[in-house]
């Protein structure tokens, strides 16, 4: 608890410090490439329904996903706290790559925990992290995915807490992590709302994002929470079915519980043991969800839906073919929702989707699926 208290007070003082905020803003502009564009996707939208679709292009950030917004913010914070050693967990590898990148930039030591299953399906990102100077540690326990990588990162952190800062990659973990990550990611929503207003003069009618832990979603939604006219929809990983272990849709099969120091909706069995999950996308493959999402779901402010593996791959292909944008499989879940339920959206609506990452990392996996399908 003492390190969490220290983190909270350091974070508060950093955010009050104009020089700290300026350094972060400068890096977001000059290193990350913010502001990211807002792209209207007319051909994709036309195949889904009668609405205008705008994509917030987090895929165009340096390192290819929204994860860098938080990694850079927390790395600066760690340096300010005098912590030279950084650890992180990663699922799809995007947060690991972002953290390794921030550490290379700031000259910090970096170790990333990654489940063995994820290392196999995201080989390219493992290589990228190593190129960036990070040590990637395979995690062989449990389901060998994101949850287990977090377990190992927490064990490392409690052991080396005096010298080490743990850069958690999503709005998860004990307070103040969910708040810190949300704040660093809410730049997405602030930019998107300003860009959309400039372009259309309006707020979106619907905002959509995929939800693993939920950092890209809360980043987009946070500035819109107070705008009651805007429907906010989080799309979870529907996986390959509705049975236990076949998906990662916490609002479909989960119950309130405590995992990794936070109370939220958790996929678990009748005895409170944490459930196994499945998703085609490593970044959504986690049995719990950020506690703030669970809160807003309870308040009825954020709706949750899910998109199957198959529909996500369909959206991955369709966006590539109709818009010339290859989305991450994670982000493709939000687009899959539009393919499946776009007809339910009122004609003339403005829909805003967070395109949280690019799909280069997923191309080998989809190519492999195609190869296997051809063999059958």
């Amino acid at each position, binding site marked *: 608890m003492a*390190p969490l208290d220290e983190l909270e007070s350091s974070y508060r003082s950093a955010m009050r410090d104009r020089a700290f905020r300026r350094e972060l803003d400068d890096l977001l502009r000059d290193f990350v490439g913010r502001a990211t564009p807002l792209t209207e996707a007319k051909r994709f939208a036309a195949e889904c329904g009668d609405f205008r679709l705008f994509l917030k292009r987090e895929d165009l950030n340096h390192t290819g996903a929204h994860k860098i917004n938080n990694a850079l913010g927390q790395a600066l914070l760690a340096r300010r706290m005098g912590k030279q050693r950084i650890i992180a967990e990663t699922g799809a590898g995007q947060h690991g790559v972002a953290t390794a990148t921030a550490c290379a930039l700031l000259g910090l030591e970096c170790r990333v925990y990654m489940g063995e299953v994820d290392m196999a399906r995201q080989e390219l990102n493992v290589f990228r992290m190593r190129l960036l100077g990070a040590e990637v540690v395979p995690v062989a326990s*449990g389901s060998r995915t994101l949850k287990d990588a977090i*377990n190992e990162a927490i*064990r490392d952190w409690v052991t080396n807490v005096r010298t080490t800062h743990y850069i958690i990659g999503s709005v998860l973990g004990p307070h103040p992590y969910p708040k810190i990550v949300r704040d660093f990611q809410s730049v997405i929503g602030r930019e998107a709302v300003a860009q959309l207003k400039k372009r259309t003069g309006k707020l979106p009618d619907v905002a959509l994002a995929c939800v693993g832990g939920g950092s890209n979603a809360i980043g987009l939604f946070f500035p819109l929470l107070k705008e009651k006219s805007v429907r906010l929809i989080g799309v979870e990983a529907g996986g390959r079915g509705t049975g236990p272990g076949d998906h990662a849709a916490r609002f479909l099969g989960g119950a309130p519980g*405590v995992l990794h*120091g936070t109370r939220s909706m958790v996929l678990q069995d*009748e005895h*409170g*043991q944490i459930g196994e999950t499945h998703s085609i996308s490593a970044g959504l493959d986690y049995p719990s969800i950020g506690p703030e999402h669970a809160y807003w779901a309870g308040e009825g402010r954020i709706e949750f839906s899910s998109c199957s593996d198959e529909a996500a791959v369909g959206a991955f292909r369709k966006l590539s073919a109709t818009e010339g944008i290859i989305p991450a499989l994670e982000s493709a879940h939000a687009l899959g929702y539009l393919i499946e339920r776009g007809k339910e959206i009122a004609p003339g609506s403005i829909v805003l989707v967070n395109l949280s990452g690019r799909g280069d990392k997923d191309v080998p996996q989809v190519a492999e699926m195609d190869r296997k399908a051809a063999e059958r």
Partner: protein
Amino acid sequence: MKRIKVLFRRLAKERRTGLIAYLTCGDPGVAESVEIALALEQAGADALELGAPFSDPIADGPVIQAASQRSLERGTTIADVLEIARSVRAQSTIPLIVFSYLNPILRFGVERFAGEAAAAGVDAVLFTDLPPEAAKEIRGTFHAAGLGTIFLAAPTSTDERLARIDRASDGFVYYVSTTGVTGARRELDAELVERLQAVRGKLRNPVAVGFGISERDHYLALEGKCDAVVVGSAIVRAIAEGEASSAAGRAAEVVRRILGN
């Protein structure tokens, strides 16, 4: 709850440093856990920690992680942990502390657990992942049933937190010997004895020291510096290394070796 207080009063009177023995319930089996518990007491353990297996034991090192995994694969549940407590209580007055992660007990139901655990003869519960700041409700429910709560203090705990942990703990405070997870270590943290001196002066409760204690030398180094030591991974490892039928003997041997009996 009372049995823990009586124990520490007796230890103080005898000027003896107690030994609290941990076992992962259901490893290698529920019936064996009862045998092991009784053998640990026979060998000189003053209190028992009954570890409830959890799928994601983030405070535990590889030995207890593996034991939890084996136990869950055999289907051990919270009801089994209570069954073990009940069976031990039928044959012994040794203090029993359930050592658990929060989620399985939330799922079981806090009130239901409090009632059934107290009836089974459990004295207190230690949650690895529940800080006293968030425990008010659970403590109230447990106290109403006659069940105590024990909290962990760490080397990084500030004085303010130590005081809070002390206030929320019934019977003793569990002081974690070093920053890190459970698991036998060759040597104790170099500053442990010094830190204990400072910590003891600040607490009204007796102090039990755990994490890493596995050798006779460790016990001797801590003798008189704390009120009890907790031995976990060394016992759990001995249980795993050999036939299930002789696990109790191997577990007891660890306690005898550490106590020098």
